């Protein structure tokens, strides 16, 4: 007997019991219980008569280092991380969107260098707006972007590099992240030297105060680098 048939049988049993109570018991309270049983049994039967569809979870994606052979493999994994563990799509869109709460990332791989993206993900306060909406010296206007390599998101260095590969590929740019940069399990995180000079910050980020910032190599997985703002 299928599960639905069994549940239908139970529903019919509940309705039958309710009818028997109404037929043979005169005391008011049990009669009300019988009435409620008929209502609930009927509801269950109606719900069992509509198409029964369960929502099964998709297979869980694993970051399998061994499977990465090419930069494209990294981009495929990066895309999955972008829409799942990385939580990027919670706020960012790829292309215009009314519901996006943070900047549209379409073409971001063409606008920013990999180092700049890396820094934006791991040190979101490195380049920040200044708030002039008050008297006196301007104040920092902190970015709403979380540190993506810390809890609760906590992407690993490998995962961050894969996301960068995805952002570059999605923007039609050549992927500058190499599979050789991926750390194998147990292997210490490699120190990734900038492949090329940092690109100029995008116009949106150019309204920043001059700041020399030393990245935490252990945390960010990059060599210490000097960022020249205005």
């Amino acid at each position, binding site marked *: 007997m299928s599960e639905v048939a069994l549940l239908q049988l139970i529903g019919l049993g509940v309705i039958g019991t309710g009818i028997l109570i109404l037929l043979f018991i005169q005391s008011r309270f049990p009669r*009300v219980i019988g009435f409620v049983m008929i209502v*609930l049994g009927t509801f*269950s039967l109606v719900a069992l008569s509509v198409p029964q569809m*369960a*929502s099964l979870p998709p297979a*869980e994606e694993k970051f399998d280092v061994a499977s990465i052979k090419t930069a494209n493999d990294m981009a495929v994994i990066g895309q999955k991380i972008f829409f799942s563990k990385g939580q990027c799509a919670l706020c960012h869109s790829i292309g215009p969107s009314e519901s996006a709460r943070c900047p549209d990332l379409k073409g971001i791989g063409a606008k920013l260098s990999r180092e700049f993206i890396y820094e934006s993900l791991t040190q979101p306060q490195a380049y920040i707006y200044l708030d002039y909406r008050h008297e006196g010296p301007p104040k920092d206007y902190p*970015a709403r972007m979380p540190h993506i390599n810390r809890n*609760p998101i906590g992407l690993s260095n490998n995962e961050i590099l894969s996301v960068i590969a995805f952002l570059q590929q999605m923007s039609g740019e050549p992927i500058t992240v190499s599979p050789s940069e991926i750390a194998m399990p147990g292997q210490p995180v490699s120190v990734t030297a900038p492949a090329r000079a940092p690109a100029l910050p995008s116009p949106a980020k150019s309204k920043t105060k001059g700041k020399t910032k030393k990245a935490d190599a252990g945390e960010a997985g990059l060599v210490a680098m000097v960022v020249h703002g205005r």
Partner: protein
Amino acid sequence: MRNHDASHGRVLRRLNVWGLSIAGLALLAGLLGLPVSGWAEDAAGASATVSYRDIPQLGGSRNIIWVVAQLHLLLAGFVLGVPIFAWLCEIVGWKAGEKRYDKLAKEFTKLLTSSYATTALFGGILLFLLIGFYPKLMTYLTDIFFPSFLVYCALFLLETVTLYLYWYGWDVMLEGRVKVFHLFLGFLLNVFAFFIMIIPNSWATFQASPVVIAEGSSLARAWAATWNPTWWPVNVHRLIANVVLGGFICGAYAGVRYLSAKSAEEREHYDWMGYVGNFIGVFGMLPLPFAGYWLMREVYQYNQQMGITLMGGFLSWLFILQAMLIGVLFLGANYYFWLGITYRIPGAEMKYKRPIMAMLVILLLCLGVWMTPHSLVASLEEARKLGGTHHPLLGVFGVMSAKMTVANLMILVTFMSFIMYWRAGKEETATWAKVAKALMGGLFGVAAIVIIVLGVWGYFVPAIVRINYFSVAQVLIVLFVLLTVTPLTALLMKTARTTTEMVWGRMPPRAGYALVLNAVMVILLMTLMGYARSSSRVHWHIYGVMRDSSPYAYSPALGYAAVFMSLNTFIFCMLVAFIFWVATMGDKGHAKDAGHGGALPAMAGGSQSLDQSKSS
């Protein structure tokens, strides 16, 4: 020596009591500790890395949590709805000088003491089970929301103190300035209750619509997570729904007592109580669909995929069931109004027979449209004959434009029933009465026409225009009618002459069953929408953030879920009946001792002085 023995006896008794208490606590701890004991199956060996625990022998962790969480939520809705209901009744009684409203308010406030304990008990069980079954999720949520946990605890203390003062101070704060202070206590009770409701709402809504938590103090992080996109829509929706639940449960209680009433006084009293409960339930029910619409809009705004899962995905049939339940609720509420007009107001039956029939037909037609599915599950052959999965004729009723239109029309019709009942048996004496009545008639007519026109027009415009402008306009029109006609009628009735006195206690037994049916529908609706909200997260504990990787990550089919909803509804009804029974038990004894001998209804929390003043 005797003293010595007595002292020994006291000590032994005390020890006995302590022993029993400790044994009880140990038993409770043992039961609650099952998940963490050897019986429970760890997902992994070391406790630090355990993500899930389970008790498959008891139906599985998900099903256990489902029942306990649902019961806790329903009880919480009840204990938050009842103070609103009681406070409103107390204000009416105070302003109108009608003691029976005050008595009714007290009768329901008495329930709070026992129902708070039951709700807290289920809350405690739920918390232990959550910590046991979902340690990883709970650690994550605790990390984010810990400051609000503390606020929640503080609010509970404040709420408890206020409830004690409100309940135990009732009889000493009956008149004058102290009565105003008592009303203020009732207000405070509701304010604390409101915050007690919205704090856990933030935890639940964060799971459905999380925001990214940036760096900052723990307070800043908790606040950022609390202020998530669906928090306020859910707060408003639940607040109104709690009023509806409180009203209809009051009605159901009155219905059951009315059915088993043995004297004319009891019948009169419980008939009147049923009327008040139904009135408050309907009063809350009218704006509820608007709050629901806002919530769905925010869900779509937040994540279109989640909206589609709800409205067009595997949960789409759920909304057909929702339409059925709401339809029955609307019919039940209207039917009760119509019975009231027919039986309580002698001579009104013939006068209102035709409008009642017309309203019944409109309601049934609207319900038919609302319940029309968007697409049909058909075989290939059937689909070929239909020319697709949409029925060529009925398919047009399956879309949101039609459903929004009929939902608004049903609200209008119910409001008309309410106004009709209000005006029945009275004759307006104001000089401007004719103009006011014509204006009200015109408002209803124009509103209905505009709603239908916008509904039809909605088929020919892009969805975004319909959602952002047409549907909003329909809602605003109905709200305008509600907010215009209600004060106008109140003004008219202020000077109206009563032509036929309302006679209480003459309703047929089916009126009592209609009240019970309404309450069951509201409870079922709450359980149904609980399943919808939970299932809309699909395989995520926290949508897009923390994946459910347990064996229960799937959302069960509607039929299976409906059986659980029915079970939860039944258990909740029995719990509420038990709470009512316990609360009235002592009063029955008092009534007998006082020699009333059942002449007066046994009132939960009924003041003897009030009873006596009524009997004299």
